[in-house]
């Protein structure tokens, strides 16, 4: 156990829970937040916190698997209309991005149904060969006997290629998608390194300009199978205003980027830290499919989703009032021993590996889940074919966010 972890453990163990604020990104930067969630699940599973960050203020934390399942399946009581992150929009904010993940039925259902066919498994067969081709190309270009950043060279590269394909976005500009994804989740209030709000909004407007050009090209052409064409021609989406178009773009870019990217990195780290699981995999490559689900549980690339209480209700013995907000901490539910056996261990051949919360449940369940699984499966198939070992050679650098749980750097080395 490193000194840093030991210090974090002592700090969390000594913490007065009334002061606990799991949305503080510091606990994600030093990866100590799991210790806090373990205490909350045991001692106060539905917990009221106060954040010093304006706009977050007071919020409930729901930390147990079954309570999270209840919230996620009761969209009539727990609304998504006020957004899916704890930060409130300022009153009267006309910059509020409208995206279907932050809508309730019926509009949510209409817009979701418009985009979901593109990532439906029946359609994934069309992508499979292309994903494999690009995965091979990226892996074959990696240096040997030399330290490099897995995040930049593999995870970002592969997820960005995929997004560019889904949007039929100019490939040479694909890193713009990564940039816009990072910009849209950046938050000055919780991350001092983030750009100022005006700068962020200006960049997002550039993004809108770029995508408006693509929209105009496609709306004037016959319908095709890319996402922009689908939005431009779809009955439920063709009349979206600019902020709604931008909101849905952000949703699809972040949804397809931050998530899979960080599971691609998190898997390398998990297998490095659990060499016996890597041995299991090499002995029985048929475990790859269940390993992919286990990686997604283990990483939980989106740590929570926010809901707003629509009517006074009781959850886990606590009284919630109309208008209050809560975070369903998927990261915590995915470590809940009362539902997942040996939840604190990374086990690639566990029973029921698909029963994890990382995709959410209920009507907002991740629309791209099968695509994400396919990308990870192909990545690991091709890794097994090529490399005996991917050695992690430095401490991972984690993203300063309590929403996106991810890595900005993971230094690795592959032997010749």
């Amino acid at each position, binding site marked *: 156990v490193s000194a840093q972890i030991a210090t974090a453990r002592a700090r969390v163990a000594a913490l007065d829970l009334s002061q606990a604020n799991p949305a503080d990104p510091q606990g994600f930067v030093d990866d100590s937040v799991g210790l806090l969630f373990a205490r909350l699940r045991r001692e106060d599973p539905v917990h009221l916190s106060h954040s010093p960050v304006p706009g977050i203020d007071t919020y409930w934390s729901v930390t147990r698997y079954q309570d999270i*399942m209840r919230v*996620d*399946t009761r*969209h009539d009581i727990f609304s998504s209309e006020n957004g899916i992150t704890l930060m409130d929009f300022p009153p009267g904010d006309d910059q509020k991005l409208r995206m279907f993940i932050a809508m309730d*039925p019926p509009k949510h*259902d209409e817009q*979701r*149904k418009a985009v*979901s*066919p593109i*990532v*439906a*498994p*029946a359609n994934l067969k069309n992508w499979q060969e292309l994903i494999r081709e690009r995965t091979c190309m990226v892996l074959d270009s990696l240096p040997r006997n030399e330290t490099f950043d897995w995040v930049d060279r593999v995870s970002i590269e592969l997820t960005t290629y995929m997004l560019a394909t889904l949007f039929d976005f100019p490939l040479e500009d694909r890193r713009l998608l990564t940039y816009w994804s990072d910009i849209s989740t950046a938050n000055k209030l919780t991350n001092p390194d983030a750009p100022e709000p005006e700068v962020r909004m200006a960049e997002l407007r550039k993004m809108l300009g770029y995508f408006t050009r693509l929209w105009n090209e496609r709306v004037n052409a016959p319908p095709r199978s890319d996402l922009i064409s689908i939005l431009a021609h779809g009955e439920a989406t063709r009349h979206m205003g600019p902020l709604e178009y931008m909101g849905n773009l952000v949703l699809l870019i972040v949804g397809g980027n931050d998530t899979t990217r960080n599971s691609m990195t998190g898997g390398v780290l998990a297998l490095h830290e659990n060499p016996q699981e890597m041995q299991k995999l090499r002995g029985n490559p048929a475990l790859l499919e269940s390993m992919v689900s286990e990686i997604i549980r283990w990483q939980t690339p989106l740590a929570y989703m926010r809901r707003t209480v629509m009517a006074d209700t009781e959850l886990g013995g606590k009284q919630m009032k109309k208008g209050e907000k809560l975070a369903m901490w998927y990261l915590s539910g995915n470590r809940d021993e009362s539902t997942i056996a040996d939840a604190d261990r990374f086990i690639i051949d566990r029973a*029921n590996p*698909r*029963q994890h919360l990382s*995709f959410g*449940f*209920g*009507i907002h*369940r991740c629309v791209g*889940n*099968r695509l994400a699984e396919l990308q990870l499966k192909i990545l690991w198939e091709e890794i097994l074919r090529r490399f005996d070992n991917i050695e992690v050679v430095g401490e991972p650098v984690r993203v300063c966010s309590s929403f996106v749980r991810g890595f900005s750097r993971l230094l690795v080395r592959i032997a010749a």
Partner: protein
Amino acid sequence: VLKITFIAYDGTPHTVEAACGTSLMRAATDNRVPGIDGDCGGNCACATCHVYVDPAWADRVGVRTASEKDMLNLVPELQDNSRLGCQITLDPSLNGLVVTLPESQH
């Protein structure tokens, strides 16, 4: 013990035995019938146990629950006889039930 037949998208039948009181979803996943995922474990929360009930059995299987309607509303290829397997509890009247599976669970 009841006999239930799942007909895969490619037409292959899988007949399994299941006990009264289990759900149609469990009857499939406990017997590793391909094409039924059951990701949420029976909470009516993921729609990955989507089946089409053979019309001859429609009356005995009954109607969709409210939360089932919400979830089914989001599945690709929704049909009048679409149901979620986790919301169908097996009883003796369903002995011999035949359901077909969609191309994929999403």
